[in-house]
C-alpha cells in the first residue's frame, strides 16, 4: 500500500464513516474480480494478526516499527477494526487498518524475522508473564495464511502489460472503437491512450471491461473502427505484432443465442428493447437494434436521442449483456423507463410497437430474467468504491441504492440521483471499501454539502 505520492493527495479515507455503528460495507467476496476475493471468506472476526504497535514511545512513520498481536473485531471491505491483545474490554485504543497493509501480518511473522513482540505502553505493566498470556490467547485461535503477502501480490498482477495495442470504444464517438495503447495499469485498471491523441487524457477501464477488445476485433465483428491505414491493412492480412493484445487476454462474453445456427429466436435490425443509456447510466430507455454484428454483438440506439444524429450515437452491446432488457422489464420492476422522443411518461409498449410497426426482441434472448441471476450478496445501503463511468479515471464513494435481480443501482454519496449508475452485480467497476488504498488509486470522497463546507 502506497502511503504517499502526489497522485494520492486528498484521497478519501473512510475513517469517519467506519466509526458509525450502522456502517455496512459490501464484503470483499461480493466482488469476484478483486484481490483475495476467493479467500476472504476465511478472514473472520476473532482472528489474530501481528500489527504495528503504535502505542509506544517515539512512534513515527519511517522509524523501524515494533509489533504486537491484535484481534479482528469488525470487518468492512478490506478494512478491519483491531484491538491489541491485553486490552480486554477496553476499547479506547481500538483502530481501523487495511488488512492488506504492510503493517499487518499473520501471527508468527515477527518471530520469523527475529523481531520480538512488544506490548503496547498502556498495558505494559498489566501482566508479569506475557508468554503465558499469549499462549492462552493464541492457542487454537485463527490467523492469516503465512503466504498472505504473496497472495496479495499475485492477485494484484494484471494479465495486461503497458505498451500493448488494443481496440477500445471511442469516448467521443461511441459508435466506433479506436486503436489504442495501454500506458499505465493501477489495480488491474488500464489507462489507455488513443493512437491519434499524443496529449489527450486517454481512457480508463478495468481489464475485464466489455469496452476493450483484441487487435482485429472490429474487423472480425464488423464494428466501425478508427485506425491508421497500416493497422487496417495488417489486420486484413492477419499480421500481428508482438505488442498486439490477443483474444485470450480479454473477458469472453457468454455464448449467445445468436451464435447458434438454428438459434430459435433471432435479433433483427429494427427490433425494440430496453437498454441502459450508455451516455447516462442512471437511465433505462426504449431502444432499437440498428445493426446485428458478428459473434453475438448488436448496435443499439436509444430512442430518446436526437433523431438527426448520423449514427454516431449507436452503441455496441453483446446480446448476452446484462445491460439490455426485454420490453416491459422496467414496468415489471417499477423502474422509470425513459420513453422515446415525443412520448410522455404514460408510454405504453403495445401502442408504441403498433405505431412504429416494430416488434420487440424476443424474451428468450435475454439474460436479465430472474432465473439467470447469479447469487450475489449486495444489499441496499451497502457502501463501496465505484468508478464513475462518465469519467472513469475517478473512483468514488458510493452506496447500493437499489437491487433488481442482478442489476444494482449505485448512488454516489453527496451527488444528485441523476448521477446514479445502474451496474451489473458482476461489474468490474465496483470495488470493496479499502480497494483504492490497497492498489494506490485516488478515492474521491462524498461531495460535501453546502452546510458542511
Amino acid at each position, binding site marked *: 500500500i502506497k502511503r504517499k505520492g502526489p497522485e494520492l493527495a486528498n484521497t478519501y479515507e473512510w475513517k469517519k464513516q467506519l466509526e458509525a455503528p450502522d456502517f455496512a460495507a459490501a464484503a470483499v467476496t461480493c466482488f469476484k474480480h478483486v484481490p483475495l476475493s476467493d*479467500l476472504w471468506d476465511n*478472514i473472520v472476526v476473532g482472528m489474530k494478526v501481528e500489527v504495528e504497535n503504535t502505542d509506544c514511545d517515539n512512534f513515527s512513520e519511517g522509524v523501524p516499527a515494533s509489533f504486537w498481536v491484535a484481534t479482528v473485531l469488525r470487518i468492512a471491505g478490506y478494512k478491519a477494526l483491531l484491538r491489541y491483545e491485553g486490552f480486554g474490554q477496553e476499547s479506547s485504543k481500538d483502530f481501523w487498518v487495511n488488512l492488506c497493509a504492510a503493517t499487518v501480518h499473520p501471527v508468527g511473522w515477527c*518471530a*520469523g524475522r527475529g523481531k*520480538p513482540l512488544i506490548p503496547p505502553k498502556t498495558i505494559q505493566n498489566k501482566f508479569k508473564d506475557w508468554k503465558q498470556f499469549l499462549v492462552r490467547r493464541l492457542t487454537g*485461535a*485463527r490467523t*492469516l*495464511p503465512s*503466504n498472505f503477502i504473496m497472495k496479495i501480490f499475485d492477485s494484484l498482477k494484471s494479465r495486461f502489460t503497458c505498451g500493448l495495442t488494443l481496440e477500445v470504444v471511442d469516448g467521443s464517438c461511441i459508435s466506433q472503437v479506436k486503436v489504442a495503447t495501454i500506458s499505465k495499469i493501477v489495480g488491474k485498471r488500464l489507462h489507455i491512450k488513443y493512437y491519434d491523441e499524443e496529449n489527450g487524457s486517454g481512457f480508463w477501464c478495468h481489464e475485464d471491461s466489455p469496452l476493450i477488445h483484441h487487435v482485429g476485433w472490429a474487423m472480425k465483428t464488423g464494428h466501425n473502427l478508427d485506425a491508421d491505414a497500416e493497422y487496417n491493412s495488417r489486420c486484413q492480412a492477419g499480421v500481428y505484432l508482438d505488442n498486439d493484445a490477443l483474444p485470450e487476454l480479454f473477458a469472453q462474453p457468454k455464448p449467445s443465442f445468436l451464435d447458434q445456427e438454428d438459434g430459435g429466436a433471432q435479433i433483427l435490425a429494427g427490433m425494440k428493447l430496453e437498454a441502459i443509456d450508455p451516455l447516462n447510466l442512471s437511465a433505462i430507455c426504449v431502444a432499437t437494434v440498428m445493426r446485428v454484428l458478428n459473434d453475438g454483438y448488436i448496435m443499439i440506439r436509444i430512442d430518446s436521442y436526437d433523431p438527426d444524429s448520423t449514427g454516431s450515437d449507436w452503441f455496441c452491446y453483446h446480446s448476452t449483456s446484462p445491460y439490455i432488457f426485454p420490453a416491459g422489464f422496467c414496468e415489471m420492476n417499477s423502474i422509470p423507463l425513459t420513453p422515446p422522443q415525443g412520448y410522455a411518461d404514460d408510454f405504453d409498449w403495445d401502442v408504441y410497437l403498433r405505431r412504429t410497426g416494430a416488434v420487440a426482441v424476443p424474451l428468450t434472448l435475454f439474460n436479465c430474467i430472474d432465473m439467470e441471476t447469479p447469487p450475489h450478496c449486495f444489499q441496499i445501503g451497502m457502501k463501496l468504491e465505484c468508478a464513475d463511468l462518465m469519467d472513469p479515471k475517478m473512483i468514488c464513494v458510493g452506496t447500493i441504492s437499489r437491487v433488481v435481480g442482478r442489476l444494482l443501482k449505485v448512488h454516489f454519496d453527496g451527488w444528485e440521483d441523476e448521477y446514479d449508475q445502474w451496474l451489473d452485480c458482476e461489474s468490474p467497476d465496483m470495488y470493496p471499501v479499502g480497494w483504492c488504498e490497497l492498489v494506490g488509486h485516488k478515492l474521491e470522497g462524498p461531495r460535501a454539502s453546502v452546510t458542511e463546507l
Partner: protein
Amino acid sequence: GAEPKNRKWEQKQVQIKTLEGEFSVTMWASGTDD
C-alpha cells in the same frame, strides 16, 4: 477456539518471540499455503 468446520483451515505450529524468549503455539491458519 473450536476447530473451524471449513476444511480450508489448517492447524499450524506458530513461532512467537517476546522479550522473555521464544515459544510456539498451535493456531488455525486460513487459506492455502501453496
